[in-house]
């Protein structure tokens, strides 16, 4: 790490000279890397969820553009095509746009860290840049923060690497996200961050002594700050993420920088603003509060009637009590729109409705005598008469039948083709989640969308699927699955609460452990929590080898890939070797089923060993490595006891390919036996013969040598 430090400084001197001409750049991460909005986010990436009938990413881009950003890199992962389509259609991709948007997609991003490492790898940023998520809604003027940041970097010779933008707001304020609550100790004069800690779930706070002794006269400890998730970063930030491949989030980064401050000499600063509005829609609770703040015009000039996305027909009028109406809205006799209501175009509302604090999308139909309070309805929603909805999100295309009552914090998910239907005559309790996706479907799709940090969601469930909708849950004519209430499953309860951000798991690590152990009881197999990593690694190695075989990849590259996987999953070299051996030996079973005869098995395995011998040779070098490899072979054949005769052939082949040395094999044979089974194994005739042959061969060669 420290060796890179020198290089960075050199690189930055030149960039500083160019500073004036360089356009301001921004990195926008259009992925949340968690599943807070699941199952809505299954069909629609979070950045495209509508907030006040406008996709969230548009707010972020508008914010960036209004601060003078001229070049934005949008990084997408989950459902990147949808985001791309949306952006290409939007005004940001018109040739006249003052902010040039580049879209970069990859399925490999798993965290903010991956994105920034990619930024560094592709060498995208040349100067200070703004880092935001695709769900940040803000009207803060960061130009002053930017100036301060640049000034600091000039004066302090690039010591400051990041300036985080915070807004003053009292603790417990509704637009403060509990997860993001931080306590910050900072130098009052230089605004330098001395200590940074998330307070969520903590009863005690600890401050290291050195922050009180670092020599400044004044410092502040603040808890009244709202994290806007806007950071002004130096190009070094991307480099630092590359150097420290374990940094996943900005939080890791900030902590890492503060811990290593004395070694690397990097500092982080804070910009606290009182004006403006900035918040990140990180869960449904935040969605609700940001949406209502927007309708109440806190984010001026990003108001619904401004139509800043410049789309045809999106405009609406603003009248007293913050009532916004789009084009062609019809309102029945006696209906009241009390206050803070936004109604999208072509929506019709029946008679005697009572609507307050709600956002209704385009093309919705609402029947008579409907009561809506703090409801968020997206597009094409159909609500029948006598429905009551309180504090709920109703997603695209959902249908709510007569006399349904949705209590607080319900939310419906959507699916483009067939939509959720609820009712009639039903009352959904608080915290219900209804989706067209069956909760248990989730696992199968996991491979491609497992982007989550919250690993507690959906690990093991039996795969029996109920296809029928439960009329007791969603009503006689209902379509859809209840996600939480009926299942009474701890996982889902947690999920639902997570969605609303009410109860937050104090310690994700301990949590995943308990989850894992629960899981293991289900499978009645004892596994330690770390096994998961090893298992995942094994799967990845298998995948890599398979691909290598199909696409004829050179063994050197396979080695590279396995090496990087090793770092990603934090696996020791010994384990790598054992897993590799195991994967290769099991490969024929994987491909052709477990019912192979010994002959078939060896027939398919031996060529494979030949192809992959360079990979083995790369990992098996020391004497101990040979023994480890052999013990892995032994372990496997102990499990597959019907194929024990194949073992000799495998060993023979490996010996011939010079993967294993004869001394190692002999040593293993003589000393390795630890229990009855392995002793049994060594009594195998073929093996005996092989060893015999080896010994003779050794004698011969030594004789020859003489």
């Amino acid at each position, binding site marked *: 790490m420290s060796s890179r430090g020198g290089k960075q400084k050199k690189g930055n001197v030149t960039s500083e000279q160019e500073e004036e001409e360089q356009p301001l750049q921004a990195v926008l991460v259009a992925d949340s890397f968690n599943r807070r909005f699941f199952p809505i986010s299954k069909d629609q990436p979070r950045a495209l969820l509508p907030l006040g009938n406008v996709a969230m990413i548009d707010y972020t881009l508008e914010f960036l553009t209004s601060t003078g950003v001229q070049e934005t890199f949008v990084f997408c992962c989950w459902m990147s095509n949808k985001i791309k389509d949306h952006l290409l259609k939007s005004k940001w991709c018109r040739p006249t746009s003052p902010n040039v948007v580049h879209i970069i997609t990859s399925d490999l991003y798993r965290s903010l860290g991956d994105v920034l490492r990619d930024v560094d790898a592709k060498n995208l940023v040349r100067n200070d840049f703004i880092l935001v998520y695709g769900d940040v809604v803000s009207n803060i003027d960061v130009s002053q923060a930017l100036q301060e940041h640049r000034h600091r970097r000039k004066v302090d010779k690039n010591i400051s690497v990041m300036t985080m933008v915070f807004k003053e707001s009292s603790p417990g*304020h509704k637009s403060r996200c509990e997860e993001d609550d931080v306590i910050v100790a900072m130098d009052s004069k230089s605004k330098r961050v001395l200590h940074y800690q998330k307070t969520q779930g903590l009863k005690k706070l600890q401050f290291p002594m050195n922050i009180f002794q670092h020599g400044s006269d004044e410092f502040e400890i603040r808890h009244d700050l709202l994290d806007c998730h806007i950071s002004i970063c130096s190009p070094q930030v991307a480099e630092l993420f590359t150097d420290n491949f374990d940094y996943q989030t900005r939080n890791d980064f900030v902590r890492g920088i503060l811990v290593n401050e004395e070694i690397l000499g990097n500092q982080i600063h804070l910009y606290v603003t009182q004006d403006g509005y900035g918040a990140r829609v990180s869960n449904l609770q935040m969605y609700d509060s940001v949406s209502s703040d927007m309708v109440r015009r806190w984010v001026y000039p990003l108001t619904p009637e401004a139509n800043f996305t410049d789309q045809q027909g999106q405009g609406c009028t603003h009248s007293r009590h913050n009532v916004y109406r789009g084009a062609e809205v019809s309102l029945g006799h006696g209906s009241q729109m009390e206050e803070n209501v936004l109604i999208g175009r072509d929506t019709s509302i029946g008679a005697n409705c009572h609507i307050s604090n709600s956002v209704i999308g385009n093309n919705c139909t609402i029947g008579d005598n409907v009561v809506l309070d703090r409801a968020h309805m997206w597009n094409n929603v159909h609500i029948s008469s006598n429905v009551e909805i309180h504090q709920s999100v109703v997603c695209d295309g959902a249908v709510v039948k007569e006399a349904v009552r949705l209590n607080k914090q319900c939310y419906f998910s959507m699916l483009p083709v067939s939509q959720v239907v609820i009712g009639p005559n039903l009352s959904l309790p608080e915290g219900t989640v209804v989706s067209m996706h069956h909760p248990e479907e989730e696992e199968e799709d996991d491979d491609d969308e497992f982007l989550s940090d919250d690993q507690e969601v959906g690990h093991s469930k039996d795969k029996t699927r109920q296809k029928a909708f439960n009329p007791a849950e969603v009503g006689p004519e209902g379509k859809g699955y209840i996600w939480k209430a009926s299942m009474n499953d701890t996982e889902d309860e947690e999920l639902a609460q997570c969605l609303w951000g009410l109860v937050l798991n104090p310690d994700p690590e301990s949590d995943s452990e308990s989850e894992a152990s629960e899981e293991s009881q289900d499978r009645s197999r004892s596994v330690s929590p770390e096994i998961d990593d090893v298992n995942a690694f094994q799967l990845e190695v298998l995948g890599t080898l398979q691909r290598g075989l199909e696409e004829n990849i050179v063994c050197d590259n396979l080695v590279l890939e396995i090496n990087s996987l090793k770092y990603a999953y934090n696996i020791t070299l010994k384990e790598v070797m054992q897993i590799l051996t195991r994967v290769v030996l099991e490969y024929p079973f994987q491909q052709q089923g477990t019912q192979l005869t010994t002959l078939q098995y060896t027939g398919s395995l031996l060529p494979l060993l030949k192809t992959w011998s360079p990979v083995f040779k790369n990992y098996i070098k020391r004497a101990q490595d040979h023994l480890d490899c052999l013990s892995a072979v032994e372990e496997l054949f102990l499990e597959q006891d019907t194929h024990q005769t194949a073992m000799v052939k495998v060993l023979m082949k490996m010996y011939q390919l010079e993967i294993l040395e004869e001394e190692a094999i002999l040593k293993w044979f003589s000393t390795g036996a630890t229990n009855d089974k392995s002793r049994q194994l060594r009594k195998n005739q073929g093996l005996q013969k092989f060893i015999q042959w080896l010994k003779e061969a050794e004698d011969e060669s030594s004789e020859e040598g003489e």
Partner: protein
Amino acid sequence: MPGADKEADLTERIEAFLADLKRGGCGTGPIRGSGETARETTALLRKVTAQARWSSAGDLMEIIRKEGRRMTAAQPSETTVGNMVLRVLKIIREEYARSRGSSEETDQQESLHKLLTSGGLSDENFRQHYVHLKANVIEAINELLTELEGTTDNIAMQALEHIHSNEVIMTVGRSRTVEAFLKDAARKRKFHVIVAECAPFCQGHEMATNLSKASIETTVIADAAIFAVMSRVNKVIIGTQTVLANGGLRAVNGTHTVALAARHHSTPLIVCAPMFKLSPQVVITTVVRNRIILSKVNVHCPVFDYVPPELITLFISNIGGNAPSYIYRLMSELYHPEDHDL
């Protein structure tokens, strides 16, 4: 292709202007006076006239209308943009009529008799092509621009007619026009200005600083004290954001209070408003900007007041003083009735 280049350049300029307008209201963008907005709009429309592809006056009007609609939609609270679009449309109509050779007077006047006899409002199709039309229109727009440049000075010049020695004058908030007006009067006369601060944005403070720099005796009062102080005031001089078609005002919040207090004490209320602020609209929209974040409290912070025409004594514009009841007449002179809805 130079033509395509020109057009791309034009759309780029328009987009940039729209983006500016959209952010014009917030703290992040450049805050400009409406005078500047009016000038920029007109200059942009001149550019459109010069560079867009059109063969007849009808085409041009269609283009201007289209752009005008977008511009007004970008910042609905800034009416000057729409007003300038209307002015330019009117110019095109006049120039077209002149090219045709018909007299302006007959074309423009809408009498009851004419309405009854002609059947439709106008059967003019503006399709004929005239060689000099473009040059003439641009010339006329240039004249309009010159007029816009001089508005504030023209208004300020009339100050001495309205402000006398040792008067006590009240104003509210900050208006560039009023500031120039008072400063002009201060060159010859001594008087005392009371400024209502106009919370929560407190533009009044800035106004007071500027006035006192021009060595005018100035007092700042809280908005709540307006009525209490009114009895001492000889004259109220205010600016406005828009003059509406009925002679009413859409002005900064607090103006209505001042106007009512002035009416109660029979103090004359003078409004300094350049002609470009005259809008054919009668709609009232409130713009709300919020600054402080509080939870569980709804904060309403309307920016504009509507002041009914009955409370206003006199308008002072760049073409002289007018009573509110005469506004409709000015309106029909400045804008063509067919253009009122863009």
